[in-house]
């Protein structure tokens, strides 16, 4: 009976692997849903660190590196911004002249004062003279933020202590198209140069899918069960392996002459 259906069952088993698509393509989940080649909303209004209200389209005009942060963040956002600053300092093309850097807060309660403070810090961290307009720190209302993060595919979620969000940059062309994403929280200068070069040439390319990093505002306690599962699995592996070794060394050893 089973024998007769075996080929069918095997085919069914493998077809599950072929057809299965991930279940977790939720739009609002923290993570990046790539929208390479699409355009960011050029009419979305943001406030820059001087308090001036500007449309995104009016800011662009050069290729741009776009990063997201929220200014009360105590963790990943600072790492992203300081690593970005250090990479900017080591790049051969000049921020401001060849390209722009935009850091947009996705927390609608952030103020321009905080933006100005961050800007002062990170501009000096870059360690190279930069034009005031080279790196903009923008705040905005909920509508503009959602329009922009939605267009980029940047998913974040408010939690008790702040936000859960991924760490990634998007590189935009001068006319506001998404050229590609740069994942992670540290960036090779050459990687950014290349993305900007593609942005200048208007060439849409694929991003390199390396480990995406995330910012957690809390350490979920409910995950303890998993850790114990791993502990049990690891421990039992070791016990079995040690048992095998002891058995082989100590017990049931055939006589040395007894070799068939």
């Amino acid at each position: 009976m089973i024998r007769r259906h075996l080929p069918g069952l095997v085919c069914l088993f493998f077809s599950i692997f072929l057809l299965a698509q991930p279940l977790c393509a939720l739009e609002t989940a923290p993570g990046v849903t790539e929208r390479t080649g699409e355009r960011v909303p050029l009419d979305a209004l943001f406030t820059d660190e001087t308090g001036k209200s500007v449309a995104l389209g009016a800011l662009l005009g050069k290729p741009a590196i776009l990063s997201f942060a929220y200014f009360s963040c105590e963790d990943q956002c600072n790492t992203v911004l300081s690593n970005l600053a250090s990479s900017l300092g080591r790049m051969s093309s000049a921020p401001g002249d060849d390209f722009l850097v935009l850091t947009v807060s996705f927390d609608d309660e952030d103020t321009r004062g905080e933006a100005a403070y961050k800007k002062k810090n990170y501009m000096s961290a870059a360690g190279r003279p930069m034009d005031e307009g080279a790196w903009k720190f923008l705040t905005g209302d909920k509508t503009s933020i959602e329009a922009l993060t939605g267009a980029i595919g940047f998913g974040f979620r408010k939690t008790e202590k702040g936000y859960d969000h991924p760490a990634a940059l998007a590189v935009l062309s001068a006319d506001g198209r998404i050229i590609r994403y740069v994942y992670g929280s540290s960036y090779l200068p050459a990687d950014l140069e290349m993305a900007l070069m593609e942005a200048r040439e208007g060439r849409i390319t694929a991003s390199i899918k390396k480990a995406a990093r995330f910012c957690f505002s809390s350490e979920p306690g409910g995950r303890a069960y998993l850790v114990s599962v791993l502990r049990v699995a690891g421990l039992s592996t070791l016990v079995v392996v040690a048992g095998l070794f002891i058995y082989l060394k100590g017990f049931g050893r055939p006589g040395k002459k007894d070799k068939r």
Partner: protein
Amino acid sequence: MAADNTRGIREGYLASEPGKGFIASWLLTTDHKRIGILYLFSILSFFLVGVVFGLLMRLELISRGPTIMEAHTYNAFFTLHGVIMLFLFIIPVVPSIFGNFLLPIMIGARDVAFPRLNLLSWYFYMAGALLALTTLIIGPADTGWTFYAPYSLRTGSSVSLAVFSVFVLGISSILTGLNFVVTVHRLRAPGMTWFRLPLFVWSLYATAWIQIIATPILGVNLLLVMAERFFGIGVFDPAKGGDPILYQHLFWIYSHPAVYIMVLPAMGAVSEIVPVFARRVIFGYKAIAYSSIGIAAVGSLVWGHHMFVSGFSYTAAVYFSLFTFFVAIPSAIKVYNWVGTLYKGSIVMDTPFYFVLAFIFLFSIGGLSGLILGALSVNVHLHDTYFVVAHFHYIKFGGAGFGMLAALHYWFPKISGRMYNKRVANFALVFLFIGFNTLYFPMFILGYEGMPRRYFDYLPQYVLWQHVSIVGSWILGASIFTMIGNLLVAAFRGAAAPMNPWGARTLEWQVSSPPPKENFETIPEVTRGPYDFREGA
């Protein structure tokens, strides 16, 4: 050497079995030697596929911007190149081919402990390999060979199948490891004490333990990825309160020891070849044997050095960095002992020995560049650059790969019963060595200058070294195909090989070439060590 001992070439284990068709006699065999040959052909075929992917990736970089493929295709290519070269080639190559063929003969046994399990692990290997190649047809994965979560959880491409194929390959690896451990413990010939074991057997033994202990962790990890993709249980996906860093830990807990699964058996083969061509007992037998175990043990504690920039604690990073430096000690013990063996030896220059010299040179460069990367402060700058690519190609290809080629040229007369054309082999080796260094050394320079890895395009300032590297890839490709062609011709048309062409003392050279079925007419009584070259010994 005694050519009079040469039997007819198609005798021995290669003789056709009465009552069995040709195909059945291979596909249903439980003879460890035939299974070794099955592995030899399948693994080398996949290796050539991997080489072609590598050559095409290099060719893409011949001019800036898309040349022969788009960025997406390039991503798929480096994923496949990685999966094929690591999981289908370099991890199984030495244990599965040479371990299977030689381990029982070297310890004086008729077969491995579980011959049927041995055949089953070949079927698992083939199933896993074919599943991996299926992903090619239905849309290749683009995550790189590491399948990092959470990207691997969300991408629509055929990650499930690729992950499952690696899982199946893992089963094959565990079964082979288990088989070897039991064989070494239970089937040694009378008088074959632990310290009379050839060092190749020691290295296979250490490797087998890593396979048994570390591979299940990869299996659990990949099962969790699949569970997460199908049922959304949220172990690794931060959107569900999971932890992507956990994935990286579990992945590297296996995958770093896997580097030693790759390189230890190759080192074992080198430890066989060096004393034979130096015609003297190996220097520091016990040191080499224990350093295999040492590498296996310390190597299990260094996985974190792949994660220095993943944002885990600096204290942990410091310890992982420290342990990484420690691994260099047993590795260096081996290198010094090999060189020490050559000192005042009566060196016989022959093809396998040239391969070993190339191995020692390239492996040393790979190991030293590993120390540079192991240093925490430097790693932060070189992470994800070509420097890393150059380093692991020197270790994996220059080390494990050249060790495998040395083993292939050393044991080929025993395995096939025929001798290859040594001049062609030497010639191919010289060009392989030149091609290798022309291909990979510029990557150290490019990486130092900041060229990011895994990218199908580059900035104008990198043109020169990229082009040098591409020319190197052509030399390397041509010499690999020459080398394998030379061996294939020899396998069918070569002159009959004598029983012991290199004058070695280990047991496999005391049986005919090719070895008879069941290896020995009577199980030999071992009375001396494996590297005893004294007259009359």
